[in-house]
């Protein structure tokens, strides 16, 4: 199970996502609160078995994620629908390595009836009913950051979304980064480090690695590329779209394909 950092169209680890597509990964289980291009692309190449999320859609101007919808509506793949918060609770459960977390609010809807990862029990202290959500233990978290040193000490500028939580919930953490900075620089900002290096398994230098989504302080979203992707239908077109990023996605490793 793969936890993907970022939120909707912001700081998605797209270079890593595209690499999964290039390597023809399949039957992936994905988890995140709110996804868009990342999830839609992996569905477009048939790489996904299930997605656990509270929300899957582009934002307003880009409409709905067609590839994702097509796959779900065909019955090929499964959506484990959560409220975004229950994903957060389930990841907090993994952070503390407990099997479930209690959560409020879910008792009013039918998501708890249709999904076996929710269960209602009696609170042993008050005897009132309480909803539990089963913890989600990602195998890998993939997070794109602006700054990281070679040890993996990573700093996220601007919104962190659920990335820090994911780095504590997952068994392995892979960082892709806009910039590799020297250790003395991360150390100067030691109290601002979001992910300490000793938790990190691999650091990959991928400038522009979040494109076509945005990366705060680095670049805005690539509107044209996103609209192009959304308009694609054929597998060949989609593969070509991914290939168009090949040089850029490997540029951090001196254009060698090292990951």
């Amino acid at each position, binding site marked *: 199970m793969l936890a993907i950092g970022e939120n909707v169209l*912001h700081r998605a680890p797209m270079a890593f996502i595209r690499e999964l597509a290039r390597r023809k990964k399949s039957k992936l289980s994905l988890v995140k609160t709110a996804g868009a291009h990342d999830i839609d692309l992996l569905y477009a190449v048939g790489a996904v078995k299930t997605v656990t999320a509270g*929300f*899957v859609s582009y*934002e307003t101007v880009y409409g709905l994620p067609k590839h994702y919808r097509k796959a779900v*509506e065909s019955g090929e793949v499964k959506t484990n629908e959560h409220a975004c918060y229950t994903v957060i609770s389930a990841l907090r459960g993994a952070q503390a390595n407990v099997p479930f977390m209690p959560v409020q609010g*879910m008792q009013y*809807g*039918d*998501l708890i009836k249709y999904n076996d990862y929710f269960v209602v029990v009696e609170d042993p202290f008050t005897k009132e009913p309480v909803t539990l959500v089963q913890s989600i233990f990602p195998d890998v978290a993939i997070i794109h950051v602006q700054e990281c040193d070679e040890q993996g000490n990573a700093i996220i500028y601007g919104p962190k979304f*659920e990335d820090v939580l994911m780095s504590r919930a997952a068994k392995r953490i892979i960082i892709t980064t806009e910039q590799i900075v020297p250790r003395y620089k991360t150390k100067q900002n030691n109290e601002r480090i979001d992910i300490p290096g000793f938790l990190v398994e691999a650091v990959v230098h991928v400038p522009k690695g979040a494109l076509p989504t945005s990366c705060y302080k680095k670049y805005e979203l690539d509107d044209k590329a996103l609209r192009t992707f959304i308009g694609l239908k054929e597998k060949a077109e989609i593969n070509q779209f991914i290939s168009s990023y090949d040089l850029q996605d490997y540029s951090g490793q001196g254009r060698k394909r090292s990951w």
Partner: protein
Amino acid sequence: MTCTIADLLMDGETVFHGVSSHLPMVAMQLAKHMHAPNLVHLNIPGGVNPTTIKNASYSSAGADLVGAAEAYFPLEEIFDLSMRGKLDTAFLSGVQFDINGNVNASVIGDYHKPKVRLPGGAGSAVLIPTAKKVIIWRTKHDPRTFVNEVDFVTTRGNIWKIITPLCVFVYKNGKLHLESIHPHTTLEEVEKQTGFPLLYDELTYTNEPSIQQLQKLKEIDPKDYRSLEFLS
């Protein structure tokens, strides 16, 4: 719609909007500039009281809201805040609503093999029950949106108001009641576009935006992001 929503917000309240929520975001800024300077504006990226929303072109969940903010308080914490009963007002949406206050943001058709897979309720399933007041806004008002019975209950109840391009619904005694209709429409039009029978006591027209509001709107939202949803 923006001004109608702004009028619902009170000074000092803690108010949250999510993704694809330009319209309530602009309404919150409008309220802050008019009658509610101490309103606390919360959003997904975590920017508390961003001073400007002019850079939020394609997203109401972008980093620009943190850049211009007073403090950082991200989604995770906003959910917790609502669970603790400290979120005054939440803006949420959905795709289908029925007269009993049921909200569907999940699927059209069967849950496990849907005819249409919707984006999902995001935070709705936990925020609608736990926020003190919930304002639903929806830029479509037709019989496929306001239905006799929703296909799936993502969550239900605890709705305060629903604002549409045609009218304002208020939820009381377990039912949606028509509270006011917008001046440019008619009761017949609202009836025609609503899939359930309209309940109402005294029916009024929604207040027209004031000149001051319209002027301020031009300042805070010069590029008319509030209308993005109508275009998509």
